[in-house]
């Protein structure tokens, strides 16, 4: 297991060194959310109604930003070859990359999401549900995104292909994530929605690294 932790540690150290990438994703997220009051008008009731959906969509898009370089940089400088020769299963290599993406992009977005929600006048008592749903949703997206990044590795226009591949797959997580917040606002049960999101994360956790690992193996052949 030591190569796994070694790789994760190196990627997190690299993310800390290049903190601008994380900050850019968070800034994009807050800015995208901040544009909506200008687009749809500043009526507080309207903003509160769409807040959950806007925060979710903006977070999905912001999390996609660093995906392009997540594996692309390693592929170009030879680090990916070394990772494949670390003695880890390719799926575990992909797992380490997904974990690095979640910790260096997903978690910062998660921390910024209450600010974004308050900007859109989301009632405070729905905040914990939003954050919990987004925690599971961002995990799903990191896993899906890593698989997408692995599949588009080496492809021309991979950066454009990646969102086209990943965003449709993220729709189920989006539906249940927003439904959880709506349920909280309407005084309905939140747990079924969160349970669905947790089930998606549980399914993506083994499947996405397996698919990504196979793609990485093909890319380094």
């Amino acid at each position, binding site marked *: 297991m*030591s190569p796994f932790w070694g790789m994760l540690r190196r990627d997190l150290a690299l993310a800390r060194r290049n903190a601008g990438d994380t900050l850019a994703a968070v800034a994009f997220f807050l800015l995208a959310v901040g544009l909506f009051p200008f687009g749809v008008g500043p009526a507080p009731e309207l903003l509160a109604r769409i807040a959950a959906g806007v925060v979710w969509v903006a977070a999905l898009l912001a999390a996609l930003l660093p995906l392009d370089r997540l594996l692309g940089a390693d592929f170009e400088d030879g680090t990916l*070859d070394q990772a494949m*020769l*670390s003695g880890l299963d390719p799926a575990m290599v992909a797992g380490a990359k997904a974990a690095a993406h979640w910790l260096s992009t997903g978690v910062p977005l998660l921390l910024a999401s209450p600010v974004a929600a308050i900007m859109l006048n989301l009632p405070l008592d729905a905040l914990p549900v939003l954050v919990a749903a987004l925690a599971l949703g961002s995990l799903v997206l990191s896993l899906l995104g890593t698989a997408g990044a692995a599949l588009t590795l080496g492809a021309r226009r991979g950066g454009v292909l990646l969102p086209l591949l990943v965003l449709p797959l993220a729709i189920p997580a989006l539906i249940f994530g927003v439904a959880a917040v709506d349920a909280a606002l309407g005084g309905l049960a939140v747990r079924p929605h969160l349970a669905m999101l947790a089930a998606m994360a549980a399914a993506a956790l083994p499947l996405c690294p397996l698919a990504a690992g196979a793609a990485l193996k093909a890319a380094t052949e």
Partner: protein
Amino acid sequence: MLQAEDLAAARGGRSIFAGVSFTLTSGMALTLTGPNGAGKTTLLRLLAGLGRIVGGRLLWNGADALADRAAHARRLTLVGHQDAIKTAFTVEEALAHEARIAGVDPAHAGAAMVALGLSHLGSAPIRILSAGQRRRVALARLPLARRTLWLLDEPTVALDHAGVAALGAVMAAHRAAGGIIIASSHLPLPLPNAAQLRFNVRPPETEAA
């Protein structure tokens, strides 16, 4: 003992080489020479387990080496023509990360830096290093990871005389300890008594392997 039997490789349906056979026992070295595009890099990657063998077998101590690619990977270090180092780190940090990934105590990074003449550059960011100095950092991975089989693709490119001498000493120590080295190069390598495998350009083939 590394044994190649009739290895063949293809890329994009075109045969690159076929019928490569050799046997290397501990302490032996093999240099790969030949024109550009002859398949030296492809052979090195094939021996590392990156890539698909279209013909022949690769044996380690008599057993199929690539049956368990992860176990095979733990026997070897590949230094390709890309340095595979992150330029945001300092030399020390980069080698400490390499050590942890290889499952070695990061405290050994100091000895590897001394071996490649990098000890005065420990706290220098790799971003500001020259191509030759970066090459030394990539090569420092060899004594650091302590694997048996070293696969080197043009290891001396960009190295100065002192760098080549340092690499020669590291390689001699590795062979004395029973290690095996396979290196491709267009330049003479400091590998005394190395066997040589020459790739010749062949006329374009019509049949795809």
